[in-house]
């Protein structure tokens, strides 16, 4: 069998691509999206400037993956937030560590990133009281410590006042900050704290255009080692230029309230459509 039967017809060019782009199109497209649209070309390939811009973005993202969380300043900012009133009582933030010793281990052993280090587990066990909690908020460095440092406090600033108006009052577990953690580490923590709903705020994989994107995962009654992703809801891309704090907080509030009311999260709990509409611009064609 001939692999490429069209090979004999060497005169056939790819259609249309050789034409120059319409004048001014690139800048118009770029005004509408942070995506790499309207790139200058060298032949059919991208021009040198575009190539180097990409390499730089990749270099920044690579560096972001390996940056370490600065927990002291984060906890201090969280305490400031608690002092500003109109937020539910969340106690003194706890600093916990996963079983992944360092970044290199973390990157290759996600299983260790889902488990608490022995000392952290002991600490939680000692802390446990007779009472249970409605909600555990857990802040995890994930793959982008920068995202956690930049967006957690502003997001909580938008979320906590709304939570404080819950009736009956929401019983919040002590806030936890986790180093070298993955999403599922929240399952073990919530279980140890006897919290029925867990919200994990975690640094997402750095992208080229977004080295600091925060994600939020909401899980009802997580069971350590058993809960799967289908049982979680996720809010992604919380950052400047992505999902705004107020909008992210509204969605989080929806999931916290609906998840608690219906006693489930995940595939069975759909996105809040009404909230969705408020941020999306509707478009249609000319008839």
């Amino acid at each position: 069998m001939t692999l490429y039967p069209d090979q004999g017809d060497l005169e056939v060019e790819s259609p249309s691509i050789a034409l120059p782009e319409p004048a001014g199109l690139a800048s118009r497209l770029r005004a509408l999206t942070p995506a790499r649209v309207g790139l200058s070309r060298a032949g059919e390939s991208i021009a040198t400037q575009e190539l180097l811009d990409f390499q730089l973005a990749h270099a920044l993202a690579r560096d972001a993956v390996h940056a370490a969380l600065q927990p002291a300043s984060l906890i201090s900012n969280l305490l400031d937030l608690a002092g500003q009133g109109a937020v539910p009582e969340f106690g003194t933030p706890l600093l916990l560590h996963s079983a992944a010793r360092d970044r290199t281990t973390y990157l290759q052993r996600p299983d260790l990133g889902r488990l608490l280090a022995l000392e952290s587990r002991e600490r939680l066990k000692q802390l446990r009281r007779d009472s249970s909690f409605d909600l555990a908020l857990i802040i995890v460095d994930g793959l982008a410590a920068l995202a956690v440092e930049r967006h957690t406090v502003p997001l909580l600033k938008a979320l906590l006042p709304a939570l404080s108006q819950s009736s009956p009052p929401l019983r919040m577990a002590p806030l936890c900050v986790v180093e070298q953690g993955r999403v599922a580490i929240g399952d073990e923590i919530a279980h140890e704290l006897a919290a029925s709903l867990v919200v994990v705020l975690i640094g997402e994989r750095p992208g080229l255009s977004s080295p600091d994107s925060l994600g939020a995962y909401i899980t009802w009654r997580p069971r350590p080692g058993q809960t799967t992703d289908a049982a979680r809801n996720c809010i992604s891309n919380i950052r400047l230029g992505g999902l705004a704090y107020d909008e992210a907080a509204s969605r989080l509030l929806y999931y916290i309230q609906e998840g608690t009311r219906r006693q489930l999260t995940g595939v069975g709990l759909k996105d809040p459509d009404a909230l969705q509409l408020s941020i999306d611009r509707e478009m249609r064609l000319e008839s």
Partner: protein
Amino acid sequence: MDFGHTIRGIRHTFPHLAGLMASATPFRSGDALAGIAAKSAEERVAAQYVLADLPLKVFLNDLLIPYETDEVTRLIVDTHDSDSFAPIASLTVGEFRDWLLSDSATSDRLVALAPGLTPEMVAAVSKVMRIQDLIKVASRIRVVTRFRTTVGLPGRLSTRLQPNHPTDDAAGIAASLLDGLLLGSGDAVIGINPVSDSPATVTRLLRMIEAVRERYGIPAQSCVLAHITTQLAAIEQGAPLDLLFQSIAGSEAANSSFGVNLGLLKEGHEAAQTLNRGGTCADGTMGKNLMYFETGQGSALSANAHRGVNGAKIDQQTLEARAYAVARHFSPMLVNTVVGFIGPEYLYDGKQITRAALEDHFCGKLLGLPMGCDICYTNHAEADQDDMDSILTLLGAAGVNYIMGVPGADDIMLNYQSTSFHDALYIRSLLRLQPAPEFEAWMRCDGIARLRSDAAKGIDALDSLVERRLPG
């Protein structure tokens, strides 16, 4: 059953088939994470010797995941066609490799063989094949599918235009869409990964693509890659849904972690078929392939759903091949392995991602699937754009059905790097490949000329493309 091989006086033994398959797999971090990678390079080759001597028939009886507890195994066993298997029924895995590379393995024979092959056989033979073997055999297999375009023909390479946006913003998506269309992207599918997994978002985005498609007469199909239940809800709301998407994996437990099972996929397939939205393709037939599946090595392990008989762990490449058994049951339009998306704990670096991409493409094609590949990596993997260029060139030579077209190779929503519109132009030009015939015709005539001319007018190109509806 016990498997063993002696090398220079040292006996290497493997307690069961799952362990043998894992040990014979070229090294990758995911198998090491699962604790099933060969303990030494020598042990790996010993396993490959044993595997090469194993009759293919063994895989029909020695099941890796029990029939009783796994519906994917039941699907594989119950749909196995022994007539198609007959020509190779007496071969060992090693002899099968030799046959695949021989002149006897013509395109027609390879296609006819597919229903007689199980994923485990295909995975096994791939483990004793080098990259050039994987390329050579796959390049002989053409799997052609149709909806409004014909994808997979010889001399063609298609692209999925992937105009994602971090807030599902319509204007932002339209900008990437226009950029891609003008660069000849989108003949496999125009597919958006939405941020919001809601029926309203799916409906809104599908209507938007539909409007552009109709205005410019674009021969293409659309898809919004939400969960299948969300897309089904969108169908009920009247969404113009072309391709129905779902991520799938190779064990019942892993599929369950995705919130799907075979029954749900069947229900979805039937619902989408009733919409009857396929078009008349270049050969005059109506396009009827409408499922779109994505897979990737490591998904079962990441869901802790990678165990088989007596709890034995199955290697990630074999589980990936099993996902293809799920896919082929639904005669899909498109299947692609999102090879480097899952991260370095499963495929650590460019070398591992490259090997996996070629394995997945080979296994999928041999099982009769219209394989594409999302040639990609994340920023925490030891890989870069040079690695993607290499994979792209290798897959182009292997005859991949389609690749992704992402603006500048940078997906600003999913935070990973894939292939760009320009990368597709490179490989088409290098290997003298054309887009799907319907799309090529569109690019040579009126439709794209109107799109280009609208874009060239002094007015905002997008205002001519779409008219915004004011809020309220």
